[in-house]
């Protein structure tokens, strides 16, 4: 996959900058199973997990849109990003078939989920439900 990765890096440009206008990053890339356990399953705050793939067009639209709406919630919810090719075990464990798949997690449990693209209003409702419930 070396060449494919080289191809992607060339096309993706420098870094995968994740940040918000407020300065505090509200989204992070999951590094491995342990990272997921610590920062998602054991998270004190509710977490939205964005399962995405490099080859998935709609993911490239949903990702930034979701990040923007998460940032609007002023730290009440955290966003974790999982590349399903890098972390296939995780994706399989959480039964991800199609991407993007977004899970809403609270206290280690999956409390909500959607697959595919949503608009900003729909995302806001999804997030508010997660925070509020």
């Amino acid at each position, binding site marked *: 996959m070396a060449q494919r990765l080289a191809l992607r890096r*060339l096309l993706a440009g420098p870094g995968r900058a994740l940040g918000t206008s407020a300065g505090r990053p509200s989204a992070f890339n999951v590094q491995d199973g342990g990272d997921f356990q610590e920062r998602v399953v054991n998270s004190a705050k509710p977490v939205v997990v964005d399962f995405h793939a490099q*080859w998935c067009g709609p993911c490239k639209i949903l990702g930034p849109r979701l990040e923007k709406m998460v940032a609007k919630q002023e730290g009440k919810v955290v966003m974790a990003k999982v590349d399903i*090719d890098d972390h296939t075990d995780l994706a399989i464990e959480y039964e991800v078939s199609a991407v993007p798949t977004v899970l809403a997690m609270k206290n280690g449990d999956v409390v909500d989920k959607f697959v595919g693209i949503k608009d900003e209003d729909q995302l806001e409702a999804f997030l508010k439900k997660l925070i509020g419930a």
Partner: protein
Amino acid sequence: IIHYCLIKSHKEAAKYEKKVMVLDFVTPTPLGNSWGLGGTCVNVGCIPKKLMHQAALLGQALQDSRKFGWQFPEEVKHNWMTMTESVQNYIGSLNWGYRVALREKKVTYENAYGEFVQPHTVKATNKRGVEKLYTAERFLIATGERPRYLGIPGDKEYCISSDDLFSLPYCPGKTLVVGASYVALECAGFLAGLGLDVTVMVRSILLRGFDQDMANKIGEYMEEHGIKFIREFVPIKVEQIEEGTPGRLKVTAKSTKGNEVIEGEYNTVLLAIGRDACTRKIGLDKVGVKINEKTGKIPVNDMEQTNVPYIYAIGDILQDRLELTPVAIQAGRLLVQRLYGGATTKCDYVNVPTTVFTPLEYGACGYSEENAIQKFGEENIEVYHSHFWPLEWTVPSRDNNKCYAKIICNIRDNERVIGFHVLGPNAGEVTQGFAAAIKCGLTKEQLDSTIGIHPVCAEVCIRSHLPIPASVAFWDKHNLGR
């Protein structure tokens, strides 16, 4: 290395509540390239090939479109990176789709290199070197093939193969394609179609094993459309003049007919001289599976069983079988149905249709003309043929005498159609239906009594005409101009 077809048969086996495991591992190419689940076809074969062929056809369509009234600036350029990213994205989605499919059928998947260590036992080694042992009641080998290298100085360091081409992270530039296989000609074809300077170096004939009359027509068309051919030469040395993406390479080649030596400079050298079965390093000797020592291929009976009763094989590694994805898929599916579903149907390897996606596409089913003559005798076969001019080519003034269809019939058997050959646009689409008709025992009379669809290229196959003296070009008045 497990072929796509293996996934099909694993899904099939899992249907019968059998515990199934897939060991899939891609040994990186000399340049370090690798890929995901799905085998050659999905990752470095049919799929990316057809998509890039389509990219080239679209380039031609853009040129044609002006005559149909479309207006846009004179110079239209192609971006290799955009095309390659799109192709790789699609392949990525297929890789993932297979992972999901295996999981849904509860097939255990390991990205590890499998080799036999003793009867009924394989060792699986993952990329980190961790080894595990597995035992099973039955085994299915579908390890496929990998591109052959020339064995000359500089081949592995500087040359690429089809394993590298479809994800090359830079435009290959001026390319030398070595080989005359369908892989070589298809790749040369689309590279030239994208606007690159392409040369094909051929040792002897084009498309060995295919109807040579058709093969020569394909070569002629490519040559007339700007692809250079160097015939009867083989490379003896590849040196790097300058590093880069792409760099500059110097190729030295020797004539097969004498002592003449030539040199050429290219950005990329693509080797497409054949593929070798991946059967030599999977421990077949440990379990007694016989292979053809010269070719590496595995002889199997008509049930795809090797000489070891509990070990089966399918796909490109089989001796005396066709190297085609759909053949492997069908063989795998039927094998599992026989083993676990009580079925008895064997895979039918006769009259398998195929298509070569060269710039002028070639679809074929059944005997080549030379094989038909050899098998049935020249006096017992009748060849009907016709040139045709696709309607879509008339307005843009494209070649009016290149597309061609040929039907070979067995006079002794009710003029049964035993060979079908068509050279023209959408050859694969045209051929598929005729393959089904041939399987049903199509005769010339039935063909003649079928009414054509008008105006399409395929209708020429219904109404092709008797062979005429070679010097006269015959055009049915219905075809001409249309």
